């Protein structure tokens, strides 16, 4: 059962349980990503997902599930990045100091999940 992988994390962080499970299901079943791993980030008191869209992709994408009524501020975003950078590299499968962007996965009550990249710093548009 797909949700077995994340059930322990849902128990640990009950506030984040519905967001985490919604995004996890969306990525694994609806978006059919090749690889999705759950990582517990204690300093943030939430879990993030590390994923790869297809087998050929080299870079792991950091997905941060969040609720549709969660309030963000620039302060909170910069803290998110600085906390992620303190995580040991083994946990994240990449050099934490190099983390320049994350993908915010916003989960809605009607089961819609939308993904928005948040870059730390000045990042030119990719298709200009």
């Amino acid at each position, binding site marked *: 059962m797909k949700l077995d992988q994340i059930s322990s994390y849902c128990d640990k962080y009950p506030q984040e349980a519905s967001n985490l499970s919604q995004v996890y299901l969306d990525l694994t079943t609806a978006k059919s990503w090749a690889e999705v791993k759950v990582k517990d980030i204690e300093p943030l008191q939430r879990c993030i997902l590390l994923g790869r869209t297809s087998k050929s992709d080299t870079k792991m994408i950091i997905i941060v599930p969040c609720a549709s009524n*969660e309030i*963000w*501020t620039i*302060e909170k975003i910069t803290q998110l990045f600085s906390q992620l950078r303190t995580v040991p590299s083994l946990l994240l499968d990449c050099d934490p100091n190099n983390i320049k962007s994350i993908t915010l996965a916003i989960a809605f009550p009607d089961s819609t999940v939308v993904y*928005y990249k948040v*870059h730390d710093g*000045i*990042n030119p548009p990719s298709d*200009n």
Partner: protein
Amino acid sequence: MESSKTNVQQPFKVNISKNNKAFIWDAETVNKLRKDRIIGSLIGSLPRYPLQNQLLGLPLSLMPEEVTLLLSKGIIVLIDDEKSHLLPTKSQIEEFEKNKTENEEQQLQDYLRFIKEKRSKFQSLKKNKLKKNDVKEIENITNNDNDHNEIDDSCSQQLRITEHESSLIKAFAPTITIKTSSNSFEWYNDKNYCFDSLEVARLAGLWTWPSTPKEKYKFNIYCDLWNRGYFITNGIKFGGDYLLYPGDPLRYHSHFIATIIDMNKELSPMDIITFGRMGTAVKKSYMLCSWDTNEDKAVYVCIEWAGY
């Protein structure tokens, strides 16, 4: 007509209007400021093309950030526009009216001469017996009556010409030229109302931007972006504070829509969706800018739609 080769030098003159707006009325200055990556915005209607706003002319309007930056670098000086325009004296007014009347009279004489030349051209063409179509074109210009006998009594012809001329004079509308710059007027003198630094301008009460804490950190962020080499213009067309270009806006599309917000401004996920979707739809990156007062530096966060 003012000389077009004045070779204006720094510091450039920027006129501050009574309602604290900064305008540049000289085309050469507008051009030279582009070298300092200051673009501004042309806001003047073109007299010959009034019912459009795709192409506008002088004056150039500067953002408060641009004025403060340029003034702090000594590239511009500020002129108190209201005080520089003195009340004209009686003799100055008389001189002005006299020149105006002379100019209008000259225009009228030029116009009448033009009509006379056309008429004589028509007469000579008629004598050469050109095709009726060619003649018709010149007829419309000279308003000549075609039904009249070709061999006319010279006296009655003269009378008709005089009547015609008086109706032309009545109908004539002279062109009135309104000068773009006030420099040529004798009652304009900006020497005593010229301010070359932020402190001096602030003391005089002419230019006090930035004054609130929000304006101050908005200026800090603007300077930081300018120092990074961007060309910055107003971002109202895309719902932001600024648009950032990697080069001259005449050559490039903007890469960023920059909006300045407080570090603790609450953003809902809907806001993030709004910024991200809009930025990506117009091939730009939506950049949220904030000033970190603790570390005294600018913080930037870019939002992009992820197409998963």
